[in-house]
């Protein structure tokens, strides 16, 4: 589904962050990307989704046959990419439900599908809201305004449930969540897993991976993936930190 080859990217002021990153994600898989602060985890999410302020200096990203880096952010979403933000943005005056309706209709138009009827849309809102225990009251309010930290993260997964992406990147979705919210968010994500979609979890800590079981764990360090393993690698990282990998590579 997603093939990243030798991806190199810099921030606009020039510092190179990604230094030749390779990653292959297939349908049905969950990949966790872990790594210390400053290793390039969030930059990877930003470059994949097309945020301003980054420059791709080399490599390629193929998303089901489409050159992802060539597309505007909205067209990446229309191709089926989704980012759950680390810091969801507050947008006063724009209602959660209205903006999602706009988004879904634009996506459907792009895919040459019929518009969603008001009835079907509302039914979907209900199902997606129940999934992450987000009340109707919250889904109808301005996007993320006066939401608690946990509500913001649940709102991200609510949107994921509405948009049904092929590939979802969850950027530090576990940060700032208490244990109850973490459980709700994780269960929501698990219910959205199918054999046809894939998830990339970007995280600092192993605790999210107790709830969402990854097929692969990658260690990102200094802009490259330096080690890949199964779910057990996360436990090892939790126990020993990151330094031992660098030592292992040095030997």
């Amino acid at each position, binding site marked *: 589904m997603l093939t990243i080859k030798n991806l190199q990217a810099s921030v606009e002021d020039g510092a190179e962050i990604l230094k030749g990153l390779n990653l292959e994600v297939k349908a049905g898989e969950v990949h966790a990307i872990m790594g210390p602060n400053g290793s390039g985890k969030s930059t990877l999410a930003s470059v994949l989704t097309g945020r*301003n302020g980054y420059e791709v200096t080399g490599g390629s990203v193929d998303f089901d046959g489409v050159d992802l880096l060539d597309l505007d952010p909205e067209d990446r979403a229309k191709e089926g990419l989704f980012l759950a933000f680390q810091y969801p943005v507050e947008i006063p*005056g*724009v209602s959660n439900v209205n903006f999602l309706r706009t988004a879904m209709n*634009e996506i459907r138009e792009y895919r040459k599908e019929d518009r969603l009827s008001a009835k079907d849309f509302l039914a979907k809102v209900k199902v997606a809201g129940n999934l992450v225990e987000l009340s109707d009251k919250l889904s109808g309010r301005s996007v993320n305004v006066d939401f608690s930290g946990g509500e913001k993260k649940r709102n991200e997964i609510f949107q994921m449930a509405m948009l049904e992406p092929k590939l979802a990147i969850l950027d530090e979705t576990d940060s700032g969540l208490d244990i109850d919210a973490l459980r709700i968010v994780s269960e929501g994500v698990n219910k959205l897993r199918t054999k046809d979609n894939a998830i990339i979890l970007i995280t600092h800590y192993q605790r999210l991976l107790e709830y969402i079981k990854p097929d692969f764990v990658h260690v990102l360090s200094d802009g490259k993936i330096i080690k890949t393993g199964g779910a057990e690698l996360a436990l090892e990282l939790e126990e020993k930190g990151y330094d031992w990998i660098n030592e292992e590579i040095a030997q």
Partner: protein
Amino acid sequence: MEVVVDNKVLAFVADFKKPETISDVRKQAMDALSGMDFPTTRVEEWKYTRVAKYVKKKYKQVQASANVGEYTIADLNAHQLVFVNGYYDESLSTILEDDAVSIHKIDDLNEEYYADIVDGTSENVFSLINKAYQTGGVFIQIKKNKKANHPIHLMHILDGEEVIANARHFIQSETGSKAEVVATYHSKNSENSFTNIVLEGHIEANASLTINKFQTEAKNVLHISNELFIQDESSNFLINTITTGALLTRNGLDVIVEGENCHTEMNGAYLGTEKQHIDNHTIIDQLYSHCTSSEAYKGVMDDKSVGVFNGKVIVRQDAQKIAAYQSNKNILLSKTASVNSKPELEIYADDVRCSHGSTIGELDEEAMFYLQSRGISAASARQLLIAAFIGDILDKVQNEALRANIDKLFLEDFGWKF
């Protein structure tokens, strides 16, 4: 007021029709004009708004007819008073059955009453030109302790090139009355024409008056309005000013609060494109205690348009326990658009709560990216954010028929949905 260098003002009015009967108001205005000049940008009040090239031109006072149907607001169900080029056209107007409202010609306004009401207020060259050479207008009375059955729609139409429209209105909201006035401004084939309007009113004790002003004239028109309202004790006054039209607009709005326990609310939304210049100058003068005022103006400026906001709040020495809130927020959609925003608080009392805020910024880039990352095109994302920004001002227009009319125009002219 400027010192006279030469008589540009008298040259400007030279061809205007001399009225048959010279009332005191006209005479005083005419006398005052002979000592006036047009403002330059050296005058603080006009620092950002240059009128020189407009006042060099010649304008004619000509009567015309108009197709009123084009401008009628569906479902407003209002007394519809029509002014074409500043002339009141009774044949085009519709006055409904309403025992709370009586409508007269402006010349029927009692001059002693008027002189007493406006005593001590200031004039400028444009309000004086209007008062000296007005060609029509209405004096509206809202009867004591009554609520108007219908809104009153003052429909102004400019028709033809190089025309000046000097309509003058006065609204008397008698004690305990309640009414809504909708003032709209339109134009047709109006290259180089000039709307020079005076709208004044007296809101007596316990009365409530709402005015919604919606100006959509073509971008080849000069629009200058002078609005003055006097509030007596325990009265409520709300005015919403929505401006999308004219090449140069100067909305001058003064409210003088002459009694305790009053509430004054003024809101404004202005949207500039191309080379439009939109200037809102407001004054709230608090003379008595225990009054509140709330002022919120928002602008969205695109292309090479220029916005000006100057909001003065004066709290006089004996006016204690005043709560005055003011805010002006602007979004610039292009690198070549600009806004000059100036809050002015003059507070002479010591026990007051006043706040003001002024911002000029661009659309939030993070919010844009967030919306785009959900599959919304950049154009739609912009529209959503602009509508959200300006929407809370439009929400102050509680008349649903008018609001629908505004939304329709915004969709047609800007592609913005609410």
